[in-house]
């Protein structure tokens, strides 16, 4: 039995920041009915037609990101501009435990389904909205996507090197956690409903969620008055909470190859001295100024330069092997292909499951980083083609006849 197989989610999420949430719940067995607009062919989720592509074919059934983010979901089309479309949504909400969306704030209300209306349809409904600044507050109408969310919550600023612009994250980190934290919000509301019978609206703001991920930096400001925006800060590859040295990313042998070392304590340093000091070019490691953490922190620039020169002459995986054997956290910066194809930390976990997509064929997708002993996740079903499950949902679940479904198609309702 899947943990969530008794639950139905009426799903208006898109992109990753929303679709990621219902993807996780679907992998644990929830029946997620993804609703797409037939008029725009589902393009309100722009990932439907965007790269990566498996081959030269293009179009709304070939977007690799959409495919990845919508596995295990059912897909239907529904035109909410029509009266009949709104009636069908009403019927769907009536039999759904959760309504989930990450439209711009106010869009679902404008379509005729604010929370008050959803609750009229089903009193204990759980409605979770997720957008960049939430549905309440001065910026609720502001437009965002991942990079804007990260910039506005402090995550972009706190990722970078001194005297350089912010590095940012290089991807929409908060689209992932927008989805993950939204999944958490849905589950919290389900647990509350289990206890009390009560549904509710959960107002999630992705920038709030992102700002919870920088707690100690914030406390250093609110308690000590020390802002993160100060000379020399941030230097996020180093560690000042807790303070460690050496702690950085160093060049390795080869083009654009890199190696990360975190020296947690004096034990780690002693092990590193054994490694560095055993080589012809590692005599500097025996310098007594480096034996204590305070000494290493004080001479961190010099130490980093020495280690960089040492690492630059060595293969990143050979160094990883040597350091891990010495119980020191020192690892290669892995490229996508290296960590996906050749890393037992991911392959033995079953992290990259295959699905069979009706248009794209066999494709691998992201798995989940958690295994449950009794009700583990399962990802076997590919993302739905546009309207793929119309017959199942409108016929099998809502009880419409084939003729009625045919009429809905003819009238452009689905």
């Amino acid at each position, binding site marked *: 039995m899947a*943990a969530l197989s*008794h639950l139905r989610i009426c799903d208006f999420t898109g992109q990753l920041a929303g679709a990621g949430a219902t993807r996780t719940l679907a992998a644990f067995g929830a029946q997620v009915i993804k609703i797409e607009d037939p008029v725009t062919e589902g393009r309100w989720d722009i990932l439907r037609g965007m*790269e*990566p592509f498996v081959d030269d074919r293009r179009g709304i059934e070939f977007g*690799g990101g959409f495919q*990845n983010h919508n596995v295990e979901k059912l897909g239907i089309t529904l035109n909410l501009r029509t009266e009949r479309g709104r009636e069908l949504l009403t019927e769907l909400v009536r039999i759904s435990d959760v309504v989930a969306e990450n439209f711009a*704030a*106010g869009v679902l*209300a404008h379509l005729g389904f*604010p929370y008050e209306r959803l609750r009229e349809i089903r009193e204990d409904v759980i409605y979770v909205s997720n957008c960049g600044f*939430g549905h309440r*507050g*001065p910026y609720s109408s*502001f437009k965002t996507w991942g*990079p804007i969310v990260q*910039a506005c919550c*402090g*995550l972009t*600023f*706190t*990722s970078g090197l001194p005297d350089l612009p912010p*590095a*940012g*994250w290089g991807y929409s980190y908060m689209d992932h956690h927008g989805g*993950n934290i939204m999944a*958490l919000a849905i589950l*919290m509301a389900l*647990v*509350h409903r*289990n206890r009390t019978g009560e549904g509710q609206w*959960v107002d*999630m703001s992705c*920038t*709030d969620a992102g700002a*919870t991920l920088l707690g*100690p*930096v*914030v406390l250093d400001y609110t*308690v000590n008055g020390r802002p993160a*925006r100060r000379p020399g800060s*941030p230097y996020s*590859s180093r560690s000042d909470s*807790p303070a460690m040295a050496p702690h950085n990313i160093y060049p390795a042998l080869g083009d654009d190859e*890199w190696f*990360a070392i*975190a020296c947690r304590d004096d034990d780690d340093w002693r092990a590193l001295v054994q490694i560095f000091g055993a080589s012809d070019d590692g005599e500097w490691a025996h310098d007594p100024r480096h034996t204590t953490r305070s000494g290493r922190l004080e001479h961190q620039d010099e130490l980093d330069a020495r280690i960089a020169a040492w690492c630059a002459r060595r293969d990143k995986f050979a160094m990883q092997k040597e350091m891990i054997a010495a119980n020191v*956290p020192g*690892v*290669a910066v892995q490229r*996508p292909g290296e*960590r996906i194809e050749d890393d037992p*930390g991911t392959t033995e*976990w079953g*992290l990259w499951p295959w699905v069979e997509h009706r248009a794209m064929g066999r494709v*691998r*997708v*992201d798995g989940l*980083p958690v295994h*449950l*002993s009794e009700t583990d996740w399962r990802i076997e079903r590919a993302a739905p083609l546009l309207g793929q499950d119309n017959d199942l949902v409108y016929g099998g679940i809502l009880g419409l006849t084939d003729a009625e479904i045919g009429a809905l198609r003819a009238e452009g309702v689905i």
Partner: protein
Amino acid sequence: MARAQIGQHLSTDPLEAPDPARPGPLTGLRVVELAGEYAAFCGRLLADYGAEVILVEPPGGAPQRWYEPFVDDTPDPERSLWFWHYHANKFGVRLDLDDAAGRDAFCDLVASADIVVESEPPGRLAALGIDDADLRTDHPGLIWASVTPFGRTTSRAHEPATDLTILANAGPVWSCGYDDHSIPPVRGGGNQAYHTACIHAAIGILVALVHRDRTGIGQFVDVSMHAASNVTTEFASYGWLVAGTTVQRQTCRHASVHPTQTTVAESADGRYQPTGVPPRSAREFRILIDWIDDLGWRDDIPQVALLEVGEERGGVNMADMFDDPLVAEIFGAGRDALVAIASRLTAYEFFEQGQRRGIALPVIYAPEEVMEDVHFRARRFPTTLEHEGIGRPVTYTGAPFVMDASPWRLQRHAPRLGEHQDLLDRRRSGTTTRHDDKGGR
């Protein structure tokens, strides 16, 4: 669908304070957390939504009590702001698991709990005689979550790791850095490898809880930090999975298989300010022209004439860029006009004014600026808690999502070492596990 109409459904009023009579969604649940840096944020998430989380520390206190920064920069195990943040809302007991009596007390505590969260090296607890499988056999409803660098079962399970090495090995670092690839790639700040694992741990625990609500059966939840960050890299992973492509890092924008362009200005207050996507539709050209006119800068920004051409043409289609040189010129004028505005305004003014006009623009805030911002304050995100010991209230970050019916709450600061030792003596009765001790430093 006009924006003004959509806006009618929104409220700019400050949020009301949570109703104190309402419990959190997890109120009544007891969590035992073995102190450790990997899992601390998971316990905090559960505590914030109402669970009674009991943090178990060794007799000398958890090593994280010595993590910087400290209150007033005074190193002291009761003054670590790392510890304050990650262990707020929790109760604290001291137990020596290397001692038989301590282990018995721990197992008694586990017997009283719904959920255990720990991040011990795989095998350590079992070697001590604290076997999660045995404890789950004795207590079938128990949910036991383990957060470790590589999970309990992979062949890498015993490798050492920190936030840096997980992010480096699992993908995020590869995508993060600068256009100049002679500069090393960068670890993003804030110990996000731990957060990523902990958010998934909390999801796993709640899925298990929903299952237990239905069946009475608990389970083991195995979380791999390495796996968690591996599936938190967006296109870097699925670009490889689908198309076999490898992204390359770029300054303050998405890592990409092919280089992408961006436009950045230095704002009037000297900040790095991305200027967003230039106008393409007639409406977007009009918005930008109006903005320039409202600022009274038409004479300073000569691109206005081309923006008007863009509006008159009904917008520009990027596909025409190579056939029609004027399209490229008009598009470039929009980009240059945005840079001109951005360089004459402060970063905040540019963001706020542009967004009010419907242009999707960022402001790159430092974390302290988030806490001072009018929007976050209106949403009650900065949350203040009294701290008797240091003689001033302390402002923390707030709720990741707002649940009016079962609110997030910050009720107590992190426990002093052994502060709630009496919890070990008290047998749990029924589901009334609310602890009325207010704490106090």
